[in-house]
């Protein structure tokens, strides 16, 4: 167990005290949401007991607040994953995830950043639904990005006329995410959203109780289907849009910094000859430019 200096004389002493307290707060709670008994020594080294509450109980208040606040955040940000796994399994996944990935950002907005990777690394936590859970986690993280990532000045495509496609590169807006999924998550998510009760509330500083689970009607699992999806923002609203495989590949290549010519060539490498691809590509670009997806 971490020691704690009885007297604070240096900045290192303060850091040690804060490290001791943070270690206790961020360690997983017991099954009944208590601070683990192994932190009794830390509590006694840190906190004054008073008649109403002892050192351990006071430290436990902060530990519970930490866990309930972060669990609430995942609960709000991942309604689809919650519906897919059920409240109990989602809660279990969230606790395991937070134990492995404590917040490393000043904003809770970034809390789910590693969730997709964690689900891949820990298949037991999602069982037979792992592959769907990966798709859902990716889809919901893309929505977090679409909500408040920057919308930079959009590129006027007309001004690119005459540019050499062999050297021309285009960037996508930061709020645009391209997802290649293995399930029809978009339709399923709409069905889930339409049946989920309750909505996000403003977070207050104090959290002493776990949130009661919301009631969600069971929605059939998403069907296996290769899906080429873009999640983006228009105005202040979040949208998701299915794309043709070739369109998705083209955008993906551009997002990786490939030139326009290379992107088109790789996107159409396996294309059939039954479409006028030249007209099709032109139409895509007009649509994407109208949506403001390209930037410098």
């Amino acid at each position: 167990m971490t020691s704690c200096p009885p007297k604070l004389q240096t900045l290192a002493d303060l850091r040690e005290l804060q490290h001791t307290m943070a270690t206790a707060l961020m360690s997983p709670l017991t099954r009944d949401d208590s601070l683990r008994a192994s932190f009794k020594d830390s509590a006694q080294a840190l906190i004054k007991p008073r008649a109403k509450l002892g050192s351990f109980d006071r430290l436990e208040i902060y530990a519970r607040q930490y866990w309930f606040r972060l669990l609430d955040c995942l609960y709000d940000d991942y309604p689809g994953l919650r519906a897919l796994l059920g409240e109990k399994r989602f809660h279990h996944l969230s606790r395991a995830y937070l134990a492995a990935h404590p917040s490393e950002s000043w904003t809770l907005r970034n809390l789910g950043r590693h969730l997709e990777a964690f689900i891949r690394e820990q298949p037991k936590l999602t069982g037979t639904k792992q592959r769907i859970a990966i798709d859902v986690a990716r889809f919901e993280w893309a929505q977090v990005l679409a909500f408040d990532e920057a919308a930079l000045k959009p590129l006027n495509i007309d001004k690119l006329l005459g540019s050499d496609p062999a050297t021309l590169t285009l960037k996508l807006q930061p709020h645009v995410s391209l997802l290649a999924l293995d399930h029809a998550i978009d339709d399923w998510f709409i069905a889930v959203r339409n049946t989920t009760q309750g909505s996000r509330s403003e977070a207050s500083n104090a959290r002493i109780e776990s949130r009661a689970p919301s009631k969600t009607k069971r929605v059939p699992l998403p069907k296996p289907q290769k899906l080429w999806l873009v999640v983006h923002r228009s105005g202040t609203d979040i949208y998701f849009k299915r794309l043709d495989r070739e369109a998705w590949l083209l955008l993906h290549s551009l997002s990786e910094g490939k030139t326009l010519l290379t992107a088109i060539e790789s996107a159409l490498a396996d294309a059939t000859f039954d479409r006028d691809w030249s007209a099709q590509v032109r139409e895509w670009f007009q649509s994407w430019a109208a949506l403001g997806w390209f930037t410098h």
Partner: protein
Amino acid sequence: MNSTPFANLRVGIGLRVPHYRHILEEKPVCDWFEIISENFMVDGGRPLAVLDQILEQYRVVQHGVSMYFGNADPINREHLKKLKRLVKRTNTPWLSDHLCWGSVNGRYSHDLLPIPYTMSVAKHTAQKIRQAQDFLEVPICVENVSSYAEFKQNEMTEWEFLSEVVERADCGILLDVNNIYVSSQNHDFDPFDYLRAVPHHRVGQIHIAGHRRYDDIILDTHDHPVPDPVWALYAEAIQHCGHVSTLLEWDDSIPSFDEVHAEALKANQFIHDHDLVPA
């Protein structure tokens, strides 16, 4: 701090998501709004679109929850840069954050954790406030937090620590009278001792709020109207500090805008009563 940089904006409320639509559509009269800075320290989307509409109609003051002046870690420069961008957007006359710590070694609690009250920590904390104030080029008020624990390492009272920090940092105080009450109940001290001891000329803003009482602890939940003992502290605070910008915080189980605003406006009665008392 020879003359106060903190104008009296009168009585405002915290800007919260459930009220956005009402405020934007009905444009109700409200002296000012306090925003949580972190909710708007983003690069785009709905938060900034709403903020810009609010700024067209109302005075806004920024209130932060993640500067963590009491952290052993140095101040986060990237965070400060984002904050400064927001300061320029809102033209906030001052900004506030809490006298607390909240992260260590790159891991964040997202809580307002109490600081150990020692002279060396007061000096360290004041230095960080000065750094932030210099960088942001806007006056800072630090808010006393509610707490549920006191460190064994403490060498002074919370109000002595607060006074030491603000004098050394030459900054203002956001005096949260609900937090004083909550902490006084949790740590068995007289809240009026606290009120009397702080440097009143440095109080730039007052927070009022509700809390929730459990068997052996009071939690700062901001989910109730302001209770009478907190109003009593508010009345005492304005006796000492005079007319100071006052703000009601209501963060959970949020009722309608009108209900929250009406609760905040009760402060005017105490201000009125204060004005009737001969100097």
